[in-house]
């Protein structure tokens, strides 16, 4: 029963990232896609914190701080856009908002 090696945390981060990727690519509902993107961001946050611990530096945590701030801003604006989109198109199905096509 030792301390978990840092590389296990990184492995977990990788798995979460892979799951998030699959989520972005496979779901239709735009909100759920967005949630999967948040999952991606968090996987990366975990990675940062783990490595910060490994190196004994605070810099990784500062970066996580900033990531969170940006994610908040992004969520606010993104959801506002989706709100407008729903008002316009009556749908949030990714397959039905493809007007920027050839």
């Amino acid at each position, binding site marked *: 029963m030792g301390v978990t090696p840092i590389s296990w945390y990184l492995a977990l981060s990788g798995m979460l990232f892979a799951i998030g990727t699959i989520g972005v690519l*496979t779901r239709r509902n735009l909100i759920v896609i967005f949630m999967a993107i948040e999952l991606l961001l968090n996987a990366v946050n975990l990675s940062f914190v783990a490595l910060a611990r490994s190196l004994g530096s605070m810099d990784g945590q500062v970066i996580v701080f900033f990531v969170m701030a940006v994610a908040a801003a992004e969520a606010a604006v993104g959801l506002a856009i989706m709100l407008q989109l729903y008002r316009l198109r009556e749908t949030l199905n990714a397959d039905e908002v493809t007007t920027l096509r050839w």
Partner: protein
Amino acid sequence: MVTVTATDALRWIVLFPALGFLWNLFLGRRFPGSAKLVGPGVLLAAFIAAVLAVLQLHALPAQSALRDVVFPWIDVGTLRANVAFWLDPLSAVMVLVVTGVGFLIHVYSIGYMHDDPDVARFFTYLNLFVTAMLVLVLADNLLLLFMGWEGVGLCSYLLVGFWWTKEENATAGKKAMLANRVGDACFLVGLFLLIQYAQTLDFAGLERQADVLRVATIGGWSVPLVVCLLLLLGATGKSAQIPLYVWLPDAMAGPTPVSALIHAATMVTAGVYLTCRLHVLYALAPEALTAIAVVGAVTAFYAATIAVAQMDIKKVLAYSTISQLGYMFLGVGVGLPGAAVFHLVTHAFFKGLLFLCAGSVMHALSGEQDMRRMGGLWRRIPITSATMAVGTLAIAGVPPFSGFFSKDEIIWGAFAGPHPHPVLGVVGYAAAALTAFYMGRLMCLTFFGTSRVDAHAEHHLHESPPVMTIPLVVLAVLAAVGGVLPVPHVVEQVTGHVRMDEATLAAKAVAIADTLGGLGLAWVFYVLRPELPGNVATALGGFYRLVRDKYRIDELYDRVIYRPVLAMADAAAWVIDRGFIDGIVNGVGAFVVSTSGAWRRIQTGNVQHYALSFLVGALVLVTYYLVG
């Protein structure tokens, strides 16, 4: 060597007509009627300036020349060509003829073009023409001469097609321009060769380079010979010799003063002047002189035969001009440039006179040009008749009129000159006989016999006003007594004195018999026994028709030259340009459109598809970094 004196006087000779051109161009319509005064006025000013300049030259010792450098123009490497004018005895003769005869014809035009609404435009073009012609004869280098050469060609086009609303007039103008262009192209190639081998284009310089040129060769041919032949071709274009004469008869579509000035007295003589001016070059290539003589003699005879069968009074005079120009070339070719220029001067007098008289006849008959509808005009328009008779006697070569002295000098030169060609002399006599015959024919058909004038013209028949008849009289006097002018002597101060035996009595007798015989025969044919011409024509049948149709050369050129060229142009335009080049351009465009049409399907608009491509890219990168 020639001593050159600098002066400011020569530019005025050219400037006055240029100013007249500008006035008529911009203000001619604002001040109606001004053109009729300014046009001839500047010519008079130019003539006076010319006389003063010639007097200045005369005061200098022999072998002198005046040069007026207006401004430096081209100075590249060894080639230097300035806008500069050169007055020596040769150009003096030309200047006086151009301004003097030009002035008389301008005055005549006041009357002839009186009722034409485009009178201002007419004098504009005429003044421009005189400017260009003066540049041509006064230039001190070949490049400036060529500018004048092109200028007169342009004005010929503008003036022949003066009444361009009628399509055949515009076509005639075009034909004049195109035929000249062929000659000009040869001229240019000759110029290029001179620049290459002599490094200079001004006449004094060419003289200095004579030794260099003598031995220069290109592709095995002697350079002077090639240049002279090319310049000869250029001259045949401008001076209407075989093979480029075809434009001159068509050019009769222009107003008659134009025919008189340009196609008799001045522009067409440019080729003769050019050849005399370059006597240094021709001295280095005697074979070229032979070529000139042959071309001249053959053309003289050939054109005379066509003139015999023409019905239009202006066409007879046109072919007559071609024929007389042939005599001038013959003169140069046998080594008598002095005699050639002498004939040039007398020809300017009597041919100019003849054309103006023809214009007067047409004016009297309300525009009739066909001699079959003339006749019996002798007493009705006396001044015109008398002056035309003087002109006819002059051109036929009846002594003591001027033509006798100039023309027979040339024919005798074919036997006894520096480069004799007796055969060509005989041809010359034959052509002279024909000349007398067809001119006599013209006089008889127009003025004598029973009147065939139609009723309407008959009703309006009247002599021309003094503004037209006075120039006729002046020219008639010149044509009558011009034989005393010492032109050959003057010209030979520049080209070198020629020693030739005096013509034998036999030669003179043959010449006179020639002339009188021709005239007499015409009298018989057209006054005494008017049914004879018809009988002869029927008897000769096809041959007569061939001659009357000018040997169908125009049709030949059409088939052999125009149609193939037009076919090539068609091919180039439709097949090459439209089909091939546009095909390539459009093909590139179509290719881009089709490939992009295929590629754009990537833009599905579906965000997840884009995310998938991100993923793929990321995987590739990560693999690359792991492996590499």
